[in-house]
Structure formats: C-alpha cells, structure tokens
C-alpha cells in the first residue's frame, strides 16, 4: 500500500513540475540578436554587399576585360581561365543569394506591411539589379527555386537567362510604380536611414530603375527579334539626367570592415597593375583616337617611380629582374610597389581609396548606351550627341574632374569627337570602356562578349597568346557559379546546364547570341 501511495505522490509531483516546465524551457530564441528588424536596418548591408560583391569579383573580371593584370606572369585569370575548386569569382553569387537573399525578402515584406512604398521600390529594385548582375556574370542562375523554405530541399534548379531577363523587367517596373508613390509612410528621412547610396532620394532610385531597364534591354543588341533601340533610348532618357544622379557608393573607410575593397587598408589590389590596353588608350598610342593624349591619363592611371605611365600586358606580369629597376616598373592602382602590401599611410588614388567612391551606374555610362543604340538604329546625330555627353560627363565627374581647359581641348579634337558621319562604333565602345575603367567591369564584359572580343570594335584589344588549358582555345564567356555553393552542394542541378564541363566558362550566354 505504502509503495502505491508514495509512487502516486511522486507522479503527481512530477506532473505539477512539468506543467510549468514549458515556460522554463522557452529560452531558445537567440538573445544575442533580434529576429525581426525593420526595413531601414536591412537595406544598408545589402547595398554594401552588392558593391563588395562586384569589387571582389572585379579582381578576376577586371583581368578578363583588361582593366588590369596580375603582377605575376601566367596567372590563370589573365589567360581567361579560372581557379578550379575555388570560390574565387563567386562573391557576387554570395552577395545576391545570401547577403541580399532573404534579407531582401524580409525588407520587402516589412515595407509592404508598413506601406513604406519607397523601401518597397528600392527593395524590388535591389532584387532586379542583383539578378541582372548575377545573370550577366554567370548565365543561368537559380531564380524560381531560390529561397525555398523547405529544410529538406537540397537541389535548386537553374532558370534560363531569358527568364531572368524577363524577371528583371518585371521587378523593375513594379519598383518604379512604388517609387512613384508619395503616400503611406514614404519619406526621404525614413529612407535615408537605411539608404547609403542615395540618402533616401527615391526619385534618383526611380532613375536608377530606368537605367537598369536600359542596360537590360540594350544587352539584347544581338537579338534581331528582341532588340528595340528606341526602347533603350527611351529608358536612358527616363534615367539619369546628369552626373548628380550617378550611383556612387561612398564607404566610411575607417577600418577594414567598412572600407572599400579597393582601398589600401583592405590590401586587395597590390598584385594588380593597370593594363597595357588602358594605358595605350589614354596615352594616345592606341590608334582609335588618332594619337590624342587623354587628359584623364594621369588622373586615372598610376605613375611609376620614374614619372612614366606603363601597363602590364595580359599574362606577362611585371618583371622583378634586376635589369628592370624598381622605378621603371608598373605600380599598383594606389601607386605603390607591386607585390607587396601598401606601406602604412598609403591613401590610394582615383577611386582606389578607402572611402571610394565606387560608381555603380553613371550618367556617362548610360549616355554611351544611348549612343550605341542610336548608332545601331542608324541615327548618327543622336548617337554623336549622346557620345559627346558621355565623354563630357566622365571628364567632369567629381572623381575625375579634368580641368576646363583640358576638357575643352579634348572635346574639340575631331579625332575624339568627330562629326556624326565619321562617328565609329569603336569610338563609342572605347570611350564607354574608358569611362567605366576601374568600376564598370560587368558592363565592360557584357560589351566585349556582345562583340566577342572583336578587335575592330575594341581597337588594340589582344587575346591571350595562350589560353587557360581548359578553354580549349575559346574566349571566356562567364564565371563558373560559386564553387562551395554549387559545385559541391548543387552539382546535380549544375550538371543539367553543363556546369560540370571543364570549359563551361567558355559557353556563350543567351544574351550574346543572335
């Protein structure tokens, strides 16, 4: 009897304990950080990471498009190759899917729920922009299956580039609708809390959206059935109207955490020297502009110790032999010795400083797009006007700022700005290249791929003498998706688009095809 009583008592005691234990055990929400935050707190990191993503991958894309080359000879990227089993060239992938990704979805949800139409517009636009950049770099990407919530889903199929291009248009249009709204909780002060890029100016964002649409539409120039030059021109006309609209990202630049990836404190560019290609374009030795020395030469490019401006030829590196004295060697974009970390106190130069700025889309860039569209259409007068505006805009950009005298002389030179009749495609493309040097890697690469690295369009452009072994002699067309995301964990989906082929990076993208 006693056993039963006692056991009964113990069990009752236990039951009482357990009823209150759920509360005692409710401690599994991470106390170290919030699990829900408003849109304003989500935007800045996304803007940042998009910029850093471009900058990270620019070390490699910058070599493909011959902005710069490695100080060491024979580096795979200078042979239009890639580093196998490496995440190199996969940073934008990380920025878009992870740093944008669900953060952006949450931003959009919060904005929609709180009638923050400005945040909603920017959020949608960031999505559109992310997809545009990513598809231009990698081709097919995960779109419809991205961010699936099922914890047991492990394979994420790729969408065609055509689908991504359509999605970008859709998102941009929805963004514009929202950016047009001034009702609800829309306020410049509120948007400025999270918006590092435009400090809350939603109208500039709207122009940015049109700029993105222009880029999207213009990339289809090789597709006779889809390309509409008038549409491109219309988009450009709704986009930036002056340098004041430029999307320039300025970093705090106080430490490695908040500095530009291109700043000396981050120590990422010490092995890259400006290319022979850009050097010859600016110093007048490239025949495209009739031997005119560009006033931007000493502003954009770095001067060697002996006062000369030199470049590295793709794949050849910078000799460190004693016969090539230090003052005659190419220097880093900061003007410091190649191959070693910048000495303490290096501030950098041009846009290569800790604070930047880093341009993301500029008025000049869009004017060149307009010029090319008009040129293709056959409207040479419009083409020339936009071409001239593009050059002038870049010469007067705050980070270039060529003196008025030099600017006037340059623009007045018929070898640079010819008559409408004499305007040539290579001039448009090369001036666009110059205006995008050091930041517009993605658009430069899109241009080169549209014309398949044609030296008649990109005068003076040479291809590697020896391609990377797996190129099988073909030019580079895309970066392979991020290795530790896709090759290791999504190989089945990747296989379906041929991503496991060793020469996948030479497979042309949809947008470059007729």
């Amino acid at each position: 009897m006693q056993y039963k009583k006692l056991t009964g008592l113990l069990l009752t005691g236990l039951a009482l304990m357990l009823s209150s234990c759920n509360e005692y055990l409710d401690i599994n929400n991470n106390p170290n950080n919030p699990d829900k935050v408003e849109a304003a707190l989500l935007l800045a990191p996304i803007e940042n990471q998009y910029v850093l993503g471009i900058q990270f991958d620019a070390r490699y894309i910058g070599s493909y498009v011959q902005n710069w080359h490695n100080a060491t000879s024979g580096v795979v990227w200078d042979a239009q190759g890639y580093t196998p089993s490496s995440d190199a060239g996969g940073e934008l992938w990380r920025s878009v899917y992870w740093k944008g990704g669900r953060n952006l979805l949450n931003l959009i949800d919060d904005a929609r729920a709180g009638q923050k139409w400005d945040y909603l517009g920017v959020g949608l636009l960031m999505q559109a922009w992310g997809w545009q950049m990513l598809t231009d770099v990698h081709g097919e990407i995960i779109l419809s299956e991205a961010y699936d919530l099922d914890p047991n889903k492990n394979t994420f199929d790729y969408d065609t580039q055509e689908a991504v291009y359509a999605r970008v248009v859709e998102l941009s249009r929805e963004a514009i609708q929202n950016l047009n709204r001034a009702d609800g909780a829309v306020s410049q002060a509120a948007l400025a809390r999270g918006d590092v890029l435009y400090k809350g100016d939603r109208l500039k964002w709207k122009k940015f959206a049109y700029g993105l649409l222009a880029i999207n539409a213009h990339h289809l120039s090789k597709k006779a059935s889809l390309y509409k030059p008038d549409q491109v021109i219309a988009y450009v006309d709704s986009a930036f109207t002056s340098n004041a609209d430029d999307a320039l990202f300025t970093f705090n630049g106080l430490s490695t955490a908040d500095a530009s990836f291109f700043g000396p404190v981050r120590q990422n560019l010490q092995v890259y020297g400006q290319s022979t290609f850009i050097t010859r374009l600016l110093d007048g030795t490239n025949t495209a502009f009739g031997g005119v020395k560009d006033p931007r030469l000493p502003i954009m490019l770095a001067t060697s110790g002996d006062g000369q401006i030199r470049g590295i030829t793709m794949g050849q590196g910078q000799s460190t032999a004693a016969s090539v004295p230090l003052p005659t060697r190419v220097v880093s974009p900061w003007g410091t010795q190649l191959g070693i970390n910048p000495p303490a106190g290096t501030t950098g130069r041009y846009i290569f400083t800790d604070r930047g700025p880093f341009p993301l889309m500029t008025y000049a860039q869009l004017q060149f797009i307009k010029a090319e569209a008009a040129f293709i259409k056959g409207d040479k007068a419009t083409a020339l006007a936009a071409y001239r505006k593009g050059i002038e805009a870049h010469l007067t950009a705050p980070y270039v700022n060529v003196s008025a005298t030099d600017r006037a002389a340059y623009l007045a030179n018929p070898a640079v700005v010819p008559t409408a009749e004499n305007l040539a495609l290579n001039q448009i493309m090369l001036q666009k290249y110059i205006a995008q040097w050091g930041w517009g890697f993605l658009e430069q690469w899109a241009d080169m791929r549209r014309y398949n690295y044609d030296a008649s369009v990109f005068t003076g452009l040479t291809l590697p003498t020896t391609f990377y072994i797996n190129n099988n002699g073909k030019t580079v067309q895309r970066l392979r998706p991020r290795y530790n995301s896709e090759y290791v964990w999504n190989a089945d989906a990747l296989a379906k688009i041929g991503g496991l082929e060793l020469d996948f990076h030479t497979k042309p993208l949809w947008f470059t095809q007729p």
Partner: protein
Amino acid sequence: MAALAQDRTISGRVTSADDNQPIPGASVVVRGSTRGTTTDANGNFRIQATRGQALRISFIGTTTQDVTIGNADVINVALKQEANALNEVVVTALGIEREKRQLGYAVTEVAGQDLANSQRDNFLNAIQGRVAGVQVGTSSGMPGSSSSVIIRGINSLSGNNQPLYVVDGMPISNNTISSNNFASSRAASGQSTENRTVDFSNRAQDINPNDIETITILKGPEAAALYGVEAANGAIVITTKKGRSGQGRISYTNSFTWQQTGPLPKTQRVYGQGNNGVSNNTNFNAFGPRIPENDTLYNNAENFLRTGTGQRHNLSFDGGTDRYTYRLSAGYTSSEGVIPTTDYKRLNITLGGTAKLTDKLSLESTIQYINTDNRKVSKGANSFLIGMLSWPVTDDMSNYLNPDGSRRRATVGNTEVENPYFDINKNLLRDRGNRVVTNVGGNYTVADWLTLSARVGLDAFSTQYLIKYHPESNRSGGVIGGALDQATDNNRTLTAQYFATLKRTFGKLDASLLVGQAIYDYRYEVLATRGEKFLDPNFTSINNTDPLTQKSLSTLRQRRLIGAFANATLDYDNTVTLTLTGRNDWSSTFPIQNRSFFYPSASLSFVFTELLPDGGLRKALSYGKLRFSAAQVGKEAPEYATTQAYENQTTTGGGFSYGFTAPNPVLRPEKVTSVEVGTELKFFNGRFGIDAAYYRTTSVAQIIRDLRISYGTGFVLKTINGGKLWNNGIELSLTAEPIRQPNFGWNTTINFTKTDSRLEQLAPGLTEFYNSDSNVYSNIRNGSRLGGPLTTLTGNSYLRNAKGDILISPLSGLPLTETVWNVVADRNPDFVVGFLNSFRYRDLSLNFLFDIRKGGDVYNATESYLYRTGLSTKTLDRETPRVFTGVLKDGLENSDTPTRNSIQVVPYYNNNFYTSLADETFIERDINWVRLKEVTVRYNLPTSVLGRSRIFKSASVFFTGNDLFLLTNYTGGDPGVNAVNTATGGSGGFGIDFGNLPLPRVFNAGINIGL
C-alpha cells in the same frame, strides 16, 4: 577518568588472507570514537583503545572486519579479498554505488592514484591506454593543450562527441571556447581567429588528479539512461577523495619535471633559398642553388626550443570520526613547455566533508577552487613550427629584430613566414581562469525500504582569453597595425537532482526501484572585445588600440533540460539481474512540438558461475558473467538552431543581415541506439581475468550542424536531421597477475580496442559531410562520404584514366589533379592496444604503459608544406632527371594505346614538379606506433628507516617518464596530434598533422610523504 586509565596501546598487522601480504593503508577505527589510524607500508598499526571497544578494520576490495578488544595487546587481522568480485562496488550514474556483478553493461574504473602517479597535468591524458574503448587525443604538445576524449567512436557527424564529465554525481562543464566567440569574428574577412590556429584548454582538465579517488567510465548510452542526453557519448564519472575517519593525516607529494621536444620533422640543408635553381629571396622556397660549402649553417630549430621545466606540489589533510570526515587539499602545478614562453600553471584547493547527522540523515559536500594560467603559441598556418622549419638554414633565426627594433625579415616580398622568435616574444595567446565547482548532497533513510536522495551542483567559472598579434606580425593581425582579441567567459552550470530509492526482497528476489527528476541549467556568456592599430606596439591592452577599430561581441548561450527517470532492478539470487530504465527529457533546444522525448534501456547480467557446482570448472573459473544490454538515448540540438536571428553588420551604414546558418523549425532529437553483449571472466581467484564486449551503436536523425548548402536557399549553412550512421567495436581487456609472491609481484593488463563506423545516410542529394575547420593546409579535410567510415579524409587526388594511370599534362610533363574532392584516406586505426605492467619487488615498484596502434592513415601536411617549398629531405634528389609515370592527357588517354609520358623533368630547374603533386601523395598509409606513454619507478622507504624518524608514516621517492619514446613508421613528427581543438565537433582533426608540436618527452622525479 577511570576509562582513560584503562586506555592502552594496541598494535598489530593487517595482512591479506590470500597471500599474507601486508596491506598498507588499511583503515583501523575504534568504533564509536574519533580515534582511527591507517596501517603503514608494512601493514602495521598502533592505536589507543579500551577493553571492550571494537576495532573496525577495512580496506577497499576486502571484507571489513570488526574485532573486539580483549586482553591481547597485539591484534593481527587477515582481511579476505573479495575475490569473486561479488561485492565489488562501482560508482555509476547519479553517484549511485552498484555492485559490479549486477551491471549488464561495461564499466571501467581507473584509480585516482594511477592518474596522479602518471604525473600528467591533464589527467585525461593519463587515461589513454588504460581503458579499452577510450581514445584520448591531444591537440598538441604544448602545456595546457586541449584533450579530446572519444568513448566508443564517433556518434555524431558534426556535433559534440565528448563524454559528459561528472564530479561527485553532478555534471560539470568541459567547455573549450570556440573562436567564433571572439570579437574578431566581426572583423573583416581574413582577420578572424579560427579554431585551427588557436588552442585553448578544455575545462575538464582543471581537475587535480590528486583529488580523484576513482574514475568510472560509463561507455555507452546506458549511462545516459540516468544522466540524460548529455551522456549519450558516455560519461566520465569522477569521485573525489573524501576524508577517512581516524587520526588526522597529512600527505605531501611533489615532483620536478623536465621536458624535451618529441620527434621533429627533418629538413634538407643542401639547397638554399630560391626558385628553379636560381637564388631568390622573395619567398621561403628552398629551390635555390646549392649552399656554398663554407657558408655558416644554423640549427635554428634546436636553438629555438628549450628544455621545459616544471614542478608540482600537493598537500592534503584529512581525518574524521566515524560520523564526520573532512579533507582539505591544495595542489600547485607549474609546467613550462619546450617552446620558450609557453607555460601552464594551476592551483587547486579542495575542501570536502561528509557528515552523518543522524542515523537517518547523511550529508556530503565538496568545494573546489581552481585557478589556471596558460600561455601558448598559435598553431597551424604561420605557426612557430612551420616558421622554424622554413627559416633559411643560412640565416640565424634568433636574430629576429633589426637594430632599430623592427622585425627583421628573411625575404623581400609578401611571402614572409612568422619568425618563431618574433611570434613568441611579440604575439600572445593566453588564458587565465578562476573556477569553483561545488556540490552538496544528502540521503535520508525514511525506512529500511525507502531512501530519499537529493543533490545540487554548481560549476561556475570565468576565464579571460587574450590573443595578441603585434603590428609587425606576419599573421592576419599584423597587416592592420596589430590586433588584440580579448574575451571573458562566464559559465554557470546549475544542476539539481532528487530521487527516491525503494527496495524490497521477495524471497530470493531483490527488487529496487528508483524514481527521480533532474534539472540542468546551462548558462554560458562571453563578453569579447577587439581592437586594432596599437599605439605602443609592445604594450598589451585594449586601451592601447585605436578606438575607431574597437569592436565588441557579447554571446549568451543558454540551455535547459528537465528529465524524469526511473530505474528498476530485479536481482534473483545474486545470479541474474535485470535492470530497466526509462527517461523522459524536455530540452529547451527543440521546437515545442519536439521538446519532449522518451528513451528506455534494458540490461541483463547473468553470473553463471553461481549456478556451477563447487569444484570442477569452478576451481579454475572463479567468476563468470554474461552481459546484455540495449539502450536508446536522444541527443540535443545546439542552442538557437530553430529560429534565426540577424547579425549586426560592421559595414558602412551598419544594419543587420542573416548569419550563415538557416534555421530549422522542425528540428528533432537525434536517436542513438546501442546494443552491447559482453562477458567478464575471472580465473584462479582473480589471478587472470577477461572482460570482453562487442557493441553496435546506430544513430539516426543525426543533427547535422553547419551543413553546407547551395546559396540558393538564401543561407550558406543549415542544421538538419539527416544522417544515419553506425559505429561498432570490440573491446577486450585482459588482466593477469602472473606473479604473486610476498616480495615479488607482477600485474599486467592489455586493453584492446577495434572500432569501425559507417555513414549510411545523409540528407537527400548530399554525398559528403565535411568539416571546413579541419582543412588546415592545401586541399585535404575531414570529410565523410555516404557508405564510408566517419573517419575518412577527402581531398585533392590525381586525375586518372579509366585504367587508373595518372594523367600527365602534355605541356609540362607534370601530373594533373582532380577538381573534385575524393576520399583519400581513412584515419581509423585497425586496432589500438594499451599494455600496462606493474612489477613490485620488496619496496621497489616499476610500472609502465605502452600505447600501441596498428594502421590508420595520417595526412602529413607538414611534409606536404616542406615538399612544396623544397625543404623536405625528399627533394634532395632534385638534380636527377625523371619522368613522371603516367599517360599523357592528349585525347588518347582512354584509348587502347595511350601515350606514355616521356617528358623529362629536372625538378632543380623546374620546381613546379614539387607543387604539381596531388595532396593525396602526402597521406601516409597504415601508420603504426608503439609509444611508451608512461614509466614509473617508485621506492617506498621501509618502516625500518621511517620508524627511526617517528615523524613519517610513509615515504617514497619516484621517477616517472611520459612519452619517452615513440617507434613509428610515420616519417613526420608525431602522428598522434590533432589539427583542431575540441571545440570542433564530429570526428575532428585527428590524423591531420600540420605545424603541430609533437608530444614532449617528460621526466618527472619527486617524493610522497605521509605524516
């Protein structure tokens, strides 16, 4: 008064009834008084007592005897050994003592004395070889290194595989701080501190071996039936020393230590700095021309390392009456490693007491205070070892500063390695801790069939960690003007449990039932701060850093568990015992719907010798038992895995973003099921014994942490219930006492362990689980493939044709490597053996322990590094032209007539030859070793010597050597080191050797004195 007058001195001798050997240390107490003593080294005692009083004489492992004092002044007692082990008692879960014969699963005990006598600072290292089925690995040979203990193999792919540590019935923390708790995890990429470069102590090693009475190792999840989820990997149950009743005793032990480095890798000293046969000082490659004969060469490594010294002192007082006892001990350990500046200091103060307040109520309590101070040097890439080996032999490494005080470099360019002298003198890696472990327990006997027990424990510690990289350091901190990471952790483990034990006998059937509840509450908080850009490069303080660079990080981890358990034991006629347990846990780490989980166990013990008639077989086989058990246990998830939180961003504009890991709102407990069969046999009154066990553990719904996934999820990692794996093994322990003479004895034990494991299932679509922390050099990492063991390494291998020939580049004549990771090695040994011997000749004893391993692969990443940089002695034939065996990848490689490679390479002129080799080349296969873990010679001063002094009751002098030699077919340093620390889960980094300090050879000498 009259009674006192009748007091007289009784003397006598306590011997063993079996062999007439004296029993030193037996307890002699006058019943009902505070008077008591212990026997000396020769079994003799003297005590004051009165006629009619009773002396109680007891000794562990023997039957206690009471002798009433009559007229005789001399009382000699022969204590009977409990040879049948029938009454042998072990401490199991909850501090419950159970008779060993009743247990249906394997338990092993190690005497605290053996641990203390091994003279290890970290008692865990003394367990290696002493217990079958237990593998202890150290992360390096530096003082205070963390030790990983794996009982019965790997049960968790990514989670913790360390056992639960229990002191006097209550769990304590065995935390090793993980590098992601440092504020450097918020610094820019490339600046963070990683588990593979730093190594902080694991907290279980705080316990003073001299305070340990015994350690019971509960190997399987059977232990978990009563300890809950935490013990799913087994438990190490520590019982601390308590005071013994009788006259107060003082004992003092010391030892003085010298240590020398273990085997270091050899480097070539023929060719100098350079590339392709041309002298070049832009990097550390030793592919340059031959060093001119009259150049001075330096023995940089030998000059750098020192002879480490150390000392230990332990002083204890104990005593008491038969109702109250106390014990106070103080221990101090100081050990300086072979690398200058490294040291480990520990102070332990322990106070314990027991009290029988009434006949029904007894209490006991211990409180331990521990202070530690440990200085190490970073390991892995840029470690002192790599620096030491890479330093050009033509340069004096000790000359590490320029005349102006700045760092002197051996290269120009970006590839400088850290000068080890600079590293030890200018960088800092240090932890200092204070800890209190205490617990109070009580038993109340309500009736002879009912006992109530309760116990409360607290483990509180705070440790301060410092990582400093000098502004001129070559490490990541150097390039940003110096970096200081500082963190203080605060741990509070609060545990409480109470249970009722009911006992009743029905004829030949003894039944007992235990019902109880436990609450474990874990709170671990780290406050970390970091600063960069030192104002004064040589001053170590966060105040000395640029305020603009300062970052802080606060981390709180909380976990709670409530368990309710029951344990029923049915013992029929001391022959068959059936034990059934059930436990339900409620863990805070799961979503509400999966929070509660139940797991049962059953075990059966059958002492079949009880049924045999006396004589016949019984004469030889004195004891025989069969064991069967089956048990299940759930395993917890890491905290905060079910919902996600944002992380504060330090990029321009600040804000929040998600961290790497996706949340899993449907996480559920891992289920581990274990089946064990075994036997214990004792022959010839225990002169020879066998303990054998076979077990198989299956773990399903593995909680796989930090699984890499496609970024298409929006995250980088996720935590899922995915894997299924099994793990089995054979454990065999043979004990023998071949010689048992009054003046000469020999005991020997052989512990044999063989394990195997298999990864049977991963999440759909996944074929490999790997640990990125273990990828310390080039492309080899701890990776498990579906259908393979959990102990494999995956990595970079050669590209081969269908026939298996290595493919050669037609351009260079050098081999091509795969772009995907293949399984390249299995680290699991074929078997390991511990071989323990102890000899006694009169007052002299000799003990030694061999640790033997057969098979298992080791990745010699150090050699890979040396080879690729031309430092390896294997590169000495570089002037010999050669053709790499293989076929050209010219399109014909898979045809019937592939082109054999005929391209000749002279590595001297083309050192790409050395870097073109696949990483798999540096896997050393089937590594065996024989290691003398420990050898002790001890001389007990005979009573004839001690008697004259009248001060000392006992005294001995000893010499102990640790890791004195290592015989191995491994070509590198020490194959037994680990590339990561125990904060890394899963099968960790054992079998990966990169820049690790081999275990040092340690010589200890000291004395033991008893007053």
